[in-house]
């Protein structure tokens, strides 16, 4: 097991190098001269050129990329924001907790809603409950979360005045963003749990358990659920990653100071080092979450654990 985790962590290195290369290349070819952005439009050309030399922006592409990777790995230095002049790492680290909190609450809401409804739907297939929850789930998947966020603001902040529409300080601030972010994931998890349960319920060992005369609750909770949850865990892990990315939209609706909003603002002000750092940061988090999910498997399914040895 330790070996497996270590191997997976080592495999992260080439993936992250690849991600950094792709993102670096895209940002390199983005129009706009960083030195010009830092000094302003009115700065004399000589100053801009000097700054370009100082920053190494006149070096060949691969040298610049190599230096970026080396600084990022050795010194945790991802450069400085062109606008605020603060280290990119600090800018991101200051906002990352909000994004992580938002995504975690989104996932929590999605799981708390999605898993039970999926299980009940599967155990009562084609019942009224099942039909209604499947339609609602499909609406949940289809509703753009940025629109849903606006509707929630209209209802709960403007009309009812129950919850604040922006900020992220107290738990009251977190409800609307977390619901907005979590809804589509809840719908996806509901659908996945239902179909996974339905598949398991048809297996022979479930029939055996029922034939033994076990109570339905034991059959579902003890026998079916454990096996049905394995694909659901994958989906939950993937959703967590999507929510980290999807937080971009939610953060901008609710005015939350997170990594997503930082990136959008940075793109608008052409602060490309921050964008680059943000994408890398989220990609690393996403990959670590996926690794965590894979490790979690082994606790749910001993068959998988035995493969890791």
């Amino acid at each position: 097991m330790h070996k497996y985790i270590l191997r997976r962590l080592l495999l992260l290195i080439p993936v992250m190098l690849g991600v950094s290369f792709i993102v670096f290349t895209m940002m390199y070819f983005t129009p706009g001269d960083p030195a010009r952005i830092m000094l302003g439009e009115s700065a004399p050309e000589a100053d801009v050129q000097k700054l370009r030399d100082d920053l190494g922006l006149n070096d060949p592409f691969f040298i610049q990329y190599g230096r970026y990777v080396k600084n990022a790995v050795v010194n945790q230095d991802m450069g400085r924001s062109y606008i605020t002049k603060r280290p990119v790492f600090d800018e991101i680290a200051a906002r990352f907790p909000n994004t992580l909190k938002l995504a975690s609450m989104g996932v929590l809401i999605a799981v708390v809603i999605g898993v039970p409804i999926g299980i009940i739907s599967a155990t009562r297939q084609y019942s009224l409950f099942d039909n209604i929850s499947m339609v609602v789930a499909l609406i949940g998947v289809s509703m753009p979360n940025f629109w849903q966020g606006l509707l929630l603001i209209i209802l709960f902040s403007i009309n009812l005045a129950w919850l604040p529409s922006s900020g992220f300080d107290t738990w009251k601030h977190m409800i609307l963003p977390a619901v907005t972010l979590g809804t589509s994931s809840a719908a996806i998890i509901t659908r996945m749990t239902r179909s996974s349960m339905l598949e398991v319920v048809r297996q022979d060992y479930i029939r055996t358990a029922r034939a033994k005369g076990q109570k339905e609750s034991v059959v579902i909770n003890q026998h079916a659920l454990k096996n049905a949850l394995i694909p659901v865990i994958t989906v939950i892990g993937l959703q967590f990653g999507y929510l980290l990315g999807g937080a971009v939209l939610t953060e901008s609706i609710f005015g939350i100071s997170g990594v997503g909003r930082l990136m959008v603002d940075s793109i608008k002000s052409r602060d490309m080092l921050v964008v680059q750092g943000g994408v890398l940061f989220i990609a690393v988090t996403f990959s670590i979450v996926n690794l965590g999910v894979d490790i979690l498997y082994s606790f749910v399914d001993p068959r998988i654990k035995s493969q890791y040895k």
Partner: protein
Amino acid sequence: MSIDVKKRKKTGPWREVWRRLKQNKSAIFGLIVILTLIVVAIFADQIAPYGYDDQNLRARFQTPNGDHWFGTDNFGRDIFSRIIYGAQISLKVGLLAVGIALIVGGTMGAIAGFYGGRLDNGIMRFIDILLAIPSILLAISIVAALGPELRNVMIAVGVGSIPSYARIVRASVLSLRDQEFIEAARAVGASDTRLILKHIIPNSLAPLIVQSTIGVAGAILAAAGLGFIGLGIQPPLAEWGAMLNSGRQYIRDYPHMTAFPGLAIMVTIFALNLLGDGLRDALDPRLKN
């Protein structure tokens, strides 16, 4: 004595799929909505009562009424007309983005699966890298690099969905490449390209069709998301996400400005999802629960 020829039913795999799809009411509902949207998008000039950028500053912020079914916006533009023109943009982005992902991802997956070995390894590691970046972030970075134009939004959204098509095609190719009919085709001298295009791809169409239908929904949603944060297709073009974004600041007093574009996106995605689910059940009845 006469033989009743009419009664003989035509058969074939696609007819069978269509027969099963027809029985699924919600899928047919989805199909009808999508076909209607396509017709509306094609004949937007004839259907829309106003142009998408016809401003009438004396008729700003009108709530829905007889002249303006969905009301007007802050420039006095007719929201109903803008939504109709928006259908053009959204469908174009959805279809072309999926087209890009399908062609690039499909080719990569086919090559990886067919040739295996190092080529497979290399391509799949590249796919792993793309997968490590959440697709909306990838799309945002691409648009940031290329600029927020219609064409670039299509590319940005398309690139984000390359991995899913590459994986589906690769998996199908892997399961097909050692089958006897492929061996037979090879024995009569078919080239690799012919094997892939004529024998393998047609046999792996089912999952691709399902993924593409749901993929168009995802692409429309992603493009609208980009529009919403101001990084997508730019005003005055009537893109649904951008319309939502501009209605946002008037949400307190004129919620109709955000209600209709949002509804348009939701109905489109809902219909595509219904159709996608129906197609999945019709193409592979084993998957049906």
